[in-house]
């Protein structure tokens, strides 16, 4: 039996957290594509910081937000390896905007898995750049005030405008059909890199069941009924064909 990309150990994530699902999907795709032995992942700072405890392939840590720069270094050093970053919305859309924009702008042949749950989970549910208007968080107790806190950032739409970017899709994991779509999107993003086409990004809109919801069920209901009204799922750009 061949060695699997997922270590099949229990994870530290809160019950209902999207990371568990997305971790497994990334690993399944790596197995299906048969690339485990030539894949190098870059883990973020945030809830997924110890992703390497669950992934059975080479992984590098990156400072908060710097994963696309570290991945650029890895990929340029080894163009024949498959390099991806796994980043949350605080990591990618706040502190790491410079790195993600320029990695995309250079058209680095990388895959980015962008997990957007709308808050900083690791540090206690503070407002993220992706937090919706009016959403209550630890640092927006009365709800995100657009005047005080600014507008939610649509990173995927911005990145899609860049010529070196070949594939961008926003997906969700609120039901089984969407989960399957998410997996297919992740697979397509990796294929884009394998075929040497250029930068690919999959934004997985998910939940933080611990901060921002009373329970797991409510978190997913809110995702479907509120969050996805703003972060609309679908292919934003596809130039892989």
């Amino acid at each position, binding site marked *: 039996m061949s060695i699997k990309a997922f270590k099949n150990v229990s994870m530290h994530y809160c019950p209902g957290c999207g990371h568990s699902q997305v971790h497994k999907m990334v690993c399944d795709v790596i197995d299906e594509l048969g690339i*485990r*032995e*030539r*894949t*190098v992942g*870059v*883990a973020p700072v945030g809830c997924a*910081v*110890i992703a*390497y405890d669950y*992934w*059975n*392939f*080479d*992984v*590098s*840590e*990156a*400072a908060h937000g*710097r994963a696309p*720069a*570290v*991945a*650029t*270094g*890895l*990929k*340029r*050093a*080894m163009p024949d*390896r498959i390099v991806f970053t796994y980043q949350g919305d605080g990591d990618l859309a706040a502190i790491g905007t*410079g*790195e993600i*924009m*320029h990695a995309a702008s250079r058209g680095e042949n990388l895959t980015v898995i962008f997990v957007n749950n709308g808050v900083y989970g690791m540090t206690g549910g503070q407002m993220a750049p992706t937090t919706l208007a009016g959403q209550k968080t630890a640092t927006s107790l009365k709800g995100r005030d657009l005047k005080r806190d600014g507008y939610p950032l649509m990173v995927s739409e911005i990145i899609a405008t860049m010529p070196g970017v070949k594939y961008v899709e926003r997906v969700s994991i609120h039901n089984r059909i969407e989960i399957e779509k998410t997996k297919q999107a992740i697979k397509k993003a990796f294929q884009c890199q394998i075929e040497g086409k250029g930068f690919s990004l999959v934004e997985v809109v998910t939940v933080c069941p611990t901060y921002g919801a009373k329970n797991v069920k409510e978190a997913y209901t809110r995702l479907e009924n509120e969050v996805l009204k703003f972060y609309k799922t679908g292919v934003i750009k596809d130039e892989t064909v």
Partner: protein
Amino acid sequence: MNKILITGNEACAEGAIRAGCRFYAGYPITPQNELIAYMSKRMEEVSGVFIQSESELAAINMVYGGAAAGMRAMTSSSSPGVSLMQEGLSYIAGSELPAVIVNVQRGGPGLGNIAPAQSDYFQATKGGGHGDYRMITLAPMNAQEMFDFTYEAFDLADKYRVPVNILSDGLIGQMMEPMEMNKKMKTISPDDKKWALRGCAGREPNVVKSFFIKDGVLEEWNEALQKKYAKISKREVRYEEYKTKGADIVFAAYGSMARICKAVCDSLREEGIKAGLFRPISLWPFPTKELKKLAKGKTNFLVVEMSAGQMVEDVRLAVLDDKRVHFYGRMGGGVPQETDIINVVKRLFKSKVKSKKSKV
């Protein structure tokens, strides 16, 4: 061997290329621009990686990635840019990655100016980023040493898996002077680094990281790092002594200031003043023991720096007699001239200077 005329910055870049460095990421900043320009051309010739990054933050993290992939990786910058790199340097040290970082120092603080300075000594030698870490720091004083030291820096980085810093300044970086290209081209195979992230075919996966959340693990990790630093402190001290034997006045200076002080020694000796130079070459590890030895007599020390007095603290710690440690420095791009230093010597050591003269 024939000599060529070259700037210190270009000499440094060629030293890296010959050492087998095939990964460079950098961001333009004066006075190190000759280096990045040279690299953009040379890396193409040797089929290496050249990336002009969006910032120094990105540059140092690209170096992190390149080094994690097993490449000999380097970045270069000048003071304000090196400040931006401190986060990455702490991570590189914490993750035990080998890398070479060149700082062609300029005046600070803040944006400062683009004139030569030595005011990043603290940052380089005491750990400018967070956490308990050290960087081997080598201080060249001419184009030849920019070439030689950079060539050697990669061996040191690989040997100990630490960041190695070339602490230069705008004077050495931009000045053109003759140099011998006396080093052979090395070929480095990244696959030889068994810890590197090159895909886990035929082995267990590797992880490069500095995060240890479980109780006690980070403390152990730190203890291991300190053990390594202690070994480096023992083995990798580099310094030069010039006419220190029987000297009444010993200059302590590094880099371009050492070079100027060397000339001052000769001038003073012509006047009958026994002057010598103690020149730390490795600023970390600092040659404390060697300086202590020199301080056993009654020698007076004059530390000369292009700063408000940074290395002087390490000299004081070695000499342990404040009355014998004096300081002269200029800041913000001011370069102490030979005549300035001679005047300082005469003012400080008036009685000594006179008595010597009367004996002549």
